[in-house]
């Protein structure tokens, strides 16, 4: 009997367990999933919590409910991976040997990495919405906030779901409008990027959305520290940006266990082959989702497309065949634009988000890079698809590789 260990029972790890249970010979492979928490969070839902659209209850479920019955779930803290000895060491001192390892340990926010961010004011006047605690605290704060300067600050890239800060601002705009205090709120995005997003066409479209909603942007801002007393952001060039309420997207980093194992880069992301998803250092280690160092979005859709590719490659690896499936960087995200509308973007390593229709050319029903109510409904329905289709490893009619069909402009330079 050979043992496959999957580190992390989040989006990528759960999908891989469900897919591989069906794809591998159960008499030959034993699958163990290790995670430190019994709860699985629907992370895209955190965005809705500060505005009262979801509560904490709406975004969390027992992890065990979404893993296959045939796979073992071990709730334990990983100390480190001893890749040379093919074993995982747990913090309780036990060692688990493996024949193959899939790392899906994700990324998390690290407010401790920015001077002055994580202090007594954290979750009082400075918040995040990338954790259930942060989103809940921000909800409480917004309910009694009289208005002022609301600054959304992206500390550095890469971050999970790069459109989330924009979505937060769009939702904030319509939220304060509904409350009747929009004129008392100054919305401001502070980002290290040269514009609203990472790719030119989407940056132009989304930048226009910000301008139309009277949301200000300070691009190319390198945050050095946060001055909690004076309530201001201070840049490396000593530029200062005042705030009354700070919504921070702190530095995103991979799991500390990756650093302890010596497998990661300076942000604890694991050097991974961009096409096969095999670790660059060890042939029996594979990586997917936010844990990789790949230049793809850190988003659930990416983990989903990667899971399809990795399943094919892992089965080939297990059978001693060459791994032919190739990940193309495919990402697909609904973007909330407020007022009950949304956009959809679809792109990969080489092709930036383009206008058009998705998934059927001309028919859609979801328009690309265009604001519609249908896209908002798509985002709302995505929660069910996430829990009961994606996590369970069910096939979707959307291919793992991005298609140019339905897109109305050529490839970006």
């Amino acid at each position: 009997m050979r043992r496959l260990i999957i580190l992390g029972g989040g989006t990528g790890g759960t999908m891989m367990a469900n897919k591989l249970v069906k794809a591998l010979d159960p008499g030959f492979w034993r699958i163990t999933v290790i995670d430190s928490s019994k709860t699985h969070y629907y992370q895209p839902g955190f965005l809705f919590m500060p505005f009262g659209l979801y509560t904490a209850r709406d975004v969390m479920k027992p992890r065990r409910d979404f893993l296959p019955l045939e796979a073992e779930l071990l709730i334990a803290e990983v100390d480190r991976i001893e890749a040379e000895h093919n074993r995982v060491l747990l913090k309780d001192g036990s060692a688990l040997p493996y024949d193959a390892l899939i790392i899906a340990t994700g990324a998390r926010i690290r407010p401790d990495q920015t001077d002055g961010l994580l202090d007594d004011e954290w979750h009082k006047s400075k918040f995040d919405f990338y954790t259930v605690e942060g989103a809940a605290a921000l909800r409480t704060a917004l309910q009694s906030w009289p208005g002022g300067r609301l600054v959304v600050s992206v500390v550095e890239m890469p971050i999970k779901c790069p459109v989330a800060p924009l979505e937060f601002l769009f939702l904030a705009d319509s939220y304060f409008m509904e409350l009747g205090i929009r004129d008392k709120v100054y919305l401001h995005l502070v980002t290290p990027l040269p514009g609203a997003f990472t790719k030119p066409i989407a940056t132009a479209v989304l930048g226009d959305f910000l301008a139309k909603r009277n949301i200000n942007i300070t691009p190319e801002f390198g945050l050095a520290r946060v001055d909690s007393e004076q309530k201001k952001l201070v840049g490396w060039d000593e530029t200062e940006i005042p705030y009354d309420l700070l919504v921070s997207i702190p530095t995103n980093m991979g799991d500390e266990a990756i650093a302890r194992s010596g497998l990661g880069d300076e942000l604890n992301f694991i050097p991974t082959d961009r096409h096969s998803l095999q670790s660059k250092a060890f042939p029996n280690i594979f990586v997917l989702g936010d844990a990789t160092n790949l230049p793809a979005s850190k988003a659930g859709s990416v983990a989903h497309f990667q899971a399809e590719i990795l399943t094919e490659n892992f089965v080939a690896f297990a059978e001693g065949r060459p791994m032919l499936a190739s990940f193309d960087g495919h990402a697909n995200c609904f973007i909330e634009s407020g007022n009950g509308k949304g956009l959809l973007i679809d792109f990969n390593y080489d092709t930036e988000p383009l206008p058009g229709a998705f998934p059927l050319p001309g028919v859609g029903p979801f328009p690309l890079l265009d604001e519609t109510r249908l896209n908002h409904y798509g985002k709302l329905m995505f929660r069910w698809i996430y829990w009961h289709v994606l996590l369970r490893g069910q096939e979707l009619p959307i291919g793992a590789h991005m298609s140019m069909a339905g897109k109305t402009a050529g490839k970006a330079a």
Partner: protein
Amino acid sequence: MALAVVEETKVQNQFDEINRKLDAIAVEIEQQRRFRLALEDLKDDLTLVSKAAFPEVSRMAAEMERKGYLRLAGQMGGIADAMVSSHSSEDLEQARASIPQLIGFLRQLTRPPVLEALEVIVNGFGEVQSSAQPDVSLRTLIGEMNSPEARRGWGILIRFLRVIGTRKARM
């Protein structure tokens, strides 16, 4: 002694079989529970979407009602029924086969020069109806036929007849 071992093995086998069946039942129960959870979640999310969509759908329905789309939609059944009951299936099949030709005809009809000509004819007819004198003498009529406007009209009419005649001869 040997008999006792055989009996014990038999009992053990029975226990194993019972355990196997209990495991299968437990798996089935768990799968049913997960299925029920999926349905409950689906109900929750559909409720959320329908709540979000209701004001917009309601506004669209009111607009469609105001513009008469809903009345038209209500009549569509009657129109389809009239078509089906007053034409044979062969007629309808022929009509379906003629659709490309009809669309081609419509395309020709909506070309700017054709539309302009139709406009001239319709307006001209309207003008004639409002300004023509019912009693005209033969002499006046011959005189009018010789006017530059009437001669231009005769020219167009004769050219039109020639084009039709030529096309008919080609068919």
